[in-house]
C-alpha cells in the first residue's frame, strides 16, 4: 500500500497517523503539503486530525479550499481510497465528499475520552479485519464531532448501509449515554457511496500499540494494508 498523509497548516495528528501506517506497512507514508497537487501513485490518501487553520472558521472549511483538495477529489474519482479522521472527516464534509455536517458537541465542551465504536459493516477495505457488530475502543478528542444531517440524508445513509461505525456501550448497545457528542443516530463514521471514502471522528491511530494501552485501532490499518495492492 502506498499511503500519503496530507498536512494542512494546523494539523497535529499527522505524526500519530504516520506511526500507525508505518506499523502495518513497514514503510513511512508520504507526507503531502497542502499546496501539492500531484497524488499519483498513491493507493490511500489520509486527511489526519488536528486544527487546520486553527478551526478559527468552521472546522475544516478553510482546508477544504486548499489546492490539494482538488487532487484528493480526483484521487477519489479515480477509485482511490481516502480516510479522514477527526479534522480530516470535517474537511471531507466541508469539501462535499461526504454528506452532513459536524456540529459543536452537545456538551458544548471539548471531549477527550475513550469511546466504544460498533462496526456496522465489514465488507470494506477499512473494516474487513473487524467482525460485524464488534465493538472496539477508540480515543476521541474533538470539540465539534456532533454528526448532523437532515432526516432524508440519514435515512439514505442507513438505507444504503453507509454508516461505518456508531457510538455504543462496551457491549454494543446504541444508547444516548454512549453518544457523548450528541451525534445523529450515534453515527461516528460514514462511507461514500463507493465505500472508498471513510470519515470518522475518533482516533483509531492512537490505539495501535499495547504500550499505549491497547491495539483496538490496529485492525483498521491492517485491513487496509492487506487489501490494497503493492503493499510491501
Amino acid at each position: 500500500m502506498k499511503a500519503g498523509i496530507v498536512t494542512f497548516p494546523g494539523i497535529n495528528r499527522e505524526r500519530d497517523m504516520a506511526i500507525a501506517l508505518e506499523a502495518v506497512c513497514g514503510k513511512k507514508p508520504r507526507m503531502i503539503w497542502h499546496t501539492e497537487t500531484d497524488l499519483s501513485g498513491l493507493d490511500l490518501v489520509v486527511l489526519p486530525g488536528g486544527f487546520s487553520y486553527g478551526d478559527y472558521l468552521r472546522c475544516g472549511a478553510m482546508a477544504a479550499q486548499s489546492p490539494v483538495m482538488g487532487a484528493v477529489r480526483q484521487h477519489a474519482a479515480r477509485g482511490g481510497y481516502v480516510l479522514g479522521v477527526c479534522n480530516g472527516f470535517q474537511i471531507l464534509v466541508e469539501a462535499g465528499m461526504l454528506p452532513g455536517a459536524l456540529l459543536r458537541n452537545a456538551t458544548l465542551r471539548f471531549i477527550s475520552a475513550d469511546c466504544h465504536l460498533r462496526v456496522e459493516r465489514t465488507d470494506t477495505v477499512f473494516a474487513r479485519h473487524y467482525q460485524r457488530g464488534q465493538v472496539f475502543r477508540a480515543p476521541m478528542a474533538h470539540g465539534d464531532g456532533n454528526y448532523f444531517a437532515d432526516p432524508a440524508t440519514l435515512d439514505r445513509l442507513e438505507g444504503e448501509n453507509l454508516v461505518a461505525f456508531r457510538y455504543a456501550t462496551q457491549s454494543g448497545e446504541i444508547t444516548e449515554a454512549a453518544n457523548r457528542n450528541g451525534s445523529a443516530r450515534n453515527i461516528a463514521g460514514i462511507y461514500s457511496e463507493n465505500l472508498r471514502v471513510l470519515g470518522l471522528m475518533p482516533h483509531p491511530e492512537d490505539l495501535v500499540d499495547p504500550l499505549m494501552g491497547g491495539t483496538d485501532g490496529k485492525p483498521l490499518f491492517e485491513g487496509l494494508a492487506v487489501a490494497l495492492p503493492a503493499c510491501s
Partner: protein
Amino acid sequence: MEREVNQSLARDFGLSADEYAKVLDILGRTPSLTELGVFSVMWSEHCSYKSSRVWLRQLPTKAPWVVHGPGENAGVVDIGHGLVAVFKMESHNHPSFIEPYQGAATGVGGILRDVFTMGARPIANLNALRFGNPALPVTRRIVDGVVRGIGGYGNCVGVPTVGGEVNFHPAYDGNPLVNAMTVGVAPRERIFLSAAAGVGNPVVYVGSKTGRDGIHGATMASAEFGSDAEEKRPTVQVGDPFTEKLLIEACLELMATDAIVAIQDMGAAGLTSSSVEMAGKGGVGIELDLDRVPQRETGMTAYEMMLSESQERMLMVLRPDREETARAIFAKWELDFAVIGHLTDSGRIVVRHRGQVEADIPLAPLAEQAPLYHRPTAETPKQPILNAARIEDRYGLGRALERLVACPDLCSRAWIWDQYDALVGGQTIRRPGTADAAVVKVEGAPIALALTTDCTPRYCAADPEEGGKQAVAEAWRNLCAVGARPLALTDNLNFGNPEKPEVMGQFAASIRGMAAACEALSFPVVSGNVSLYNETNGRPILPTPAIGGLGVLEDASRSVGIALRPWLDLVLVGATRGWLGQSLWLREIAGREEGAPPPVDLQAERAAGEFVRAQIEAGAVRACHDVSDGGLLVAIAEMAMAGGVGARLFTGPRDVPQHAFWFGEDQGRYVLAVGDAPELIRAAERSGVPAMRIGTSGGRDLTLPDGGTLPIARLREAHERFFNEWIGA
C-alpha cells in the same frame, strides 16, 4: 500626548524613587518615555527577580546529568540515547484572574515557546492550578475559563496535556494560580541558546505581528490587585494557538539547518526583554529599527512596540549567509519574517523609530545595576504537633472515606482532563488519573519520561520549610511510584507581597526546605519562575512553591499505574505514626485546619523511593500509589476505583489510633499491589525500609477493618459527583 518623564511617572511604572535615581545615574540624563519603559519592565519583579534572587542561590542546580540549569529559557537534562529533556514551569496567575480563558491559554503558549526556543519539540504539557472557595460563583467562572483556556490552546497546538493538580482554598479567592509546564525533547548536540554573537549579524523577528496588547503586562504581574483588577484587562494578551503551531514547526525546521546563532521568545516584556537579554548575555550591542517591526495596528509608538506582549513572536540572530534559507521556511509557514536590526560592538541597545533615536541604553549597567533586595523576613510561628489519640473520631472509617473522596480537593478530576487532549502525538503511556505521574514515550528511543506537578499549600502555610521540603519530596515520590528515576525539577514559586516580612519569611523558609530535599534526593532545580504579589486587597495566597518533576524510565514498558488488579496483596511501604495535623481528614471530617504538617524524613524518603523503584524495575509490582492527601485509606480507595476492583483491609497496628492510621498523612509512603507479599517484605527489611501487609484485593467492595463495606461503584459515584454537579456536563 506623551506624558512628561519624571519621578511621578516612574512611580506609575512601578519604579521606586531609588530605582529611578539609578536610571538617571546610568543614563546621565532624563530617560525618554521608551527608555523609562525599558527600565521599568527589566527591573520589574517579574523580569529581575529583585526580591527572590538572593534566596534562589541556595537551591542546588547541579548534577552530572544537568546540561543547562537556571538562566536559560528552560532547564536541560541528559536522558541518554543522545537526547535531552528540556522543561520549565511558569505562572500566569494575574492574567488568569483578570481574564481566565486568555490568561490560561497564553500561559500555555508562553511556556511552550520557552521550550521550543531551545530546539526541543514539546511532547507534553502539565499544569498546577489553585482556585478559591468553590462556594463562590466567581470561582466557577474562573475554573471554567482556565480549563477551557488550557484545553483551547494545548489541544489546538497539538501538545498533549498529560497531568497536573488542582486545589481549592479561600486564600485563592481573588488570586487563582495557573502554573503551566512544558516538556520537550531534543538531540543533545542541537540545543539552541539565547546569547547573541557576531557583530553585524541580522536580528530577525518572526511570528505574529505586534499589537497594543499586553503593554506593561510584566509590571501588572509585579503588583498586587485592588478592587480595580477588572480594569486591567487590556494588559492581558490574546492567544493564537494556530500561529503558535506554525511557529513550532517553522522554528524546528529552521533549527535543522545551521542558520541560527541565537534565539529567544518574546515573552514577558516582549521585544524589550528578548533584545536586551540576547545582547546582554552575548556581551554585544544591538540596534533595532522599529519601522521594520511587523505591526497589527497603525500609529504605534516606540514605547508601545517595545513593551507590547503580543504573543507567538520570536527574536533570532542569524548567520548573514543563511537569511534567505530562513526567509523561505517562514514563507512556507506563512509567518511574518523581518530583519529588524543588527548586532553592534557598542554594548548598547539603540532603538530607532521614524528617524529618531527613541532609546539608547548601555546594556551592562541595565543588567548589573538591576535592583537586588534583601528584604526583611519574619519566621512563620511553629504550630503544635497534634496528638492523634486526643482527636476523637465520631465518623468511622467508611463514612469519612465516602466524604473525603467526594471533597473538592480529592474528588475525580475527570471533568477537567476530559477537556484536555492527552493523547495527541501517540506517545502517552500513562494518562491523567491512571498513575502517580504521567508517562510519555520518547520517540526513537526505548525510554519514557515520567512527569508530575506537586505542592501541598496548606502544609506550606503551616510550616513553609517543611512544606517546601514536602513539595519536592512528593514530586520525587510520584516519579518513583511509576518506576522512574527522578532527574530534576522545575519550580514555580507563588507567594504574596515580598515587601511584607511574613511573606518574605515564607519564601525564605520554603527555599530552605526545598534546598534540603533537592540535596538529599539528588534532585536539582534546573529552571523555574517566581510569582510574587499574589494578593488581592492585602490578603496573600497560601505560600505555593509548585514543583514540576521529571524522571526517566530506561524501559518504557516497565511503568506501573495505580489501578488495582484482583487477587493481589496490598503492602504499605514506609512508616506510619498517624499524623493528623493539617490532614484533609482533620479539615473535612473534624472541621479543623491546624497543627504542624507531617515532617519529611529525607533519608527514609530516599530509601523508600529507591526500594519501590527497584521492585518495579524487577517486575514485582502490579500497581503502586503514593500515600498523600487523605492518607492511606484514600490511596487504597483511589487504586480500587481506578481498577474497578475491591479490597479487604486488615486491622492496623495497635499502637496507632485507627483513624490516624488510615487517614494520617505521614510522608514517604507507598501502597504496592504485589503477588508475593512475604518476598517483598523480606526485601524491604534488607533495605531497611518498613513494610507491612495491609490487605488483599478482589471483589467489588472495599471491606474495612471495622467491618464496614463500601461498594466500589458507590465510591466512584461519590468521587465523580462534585464537578458534574458544580459546573455540570
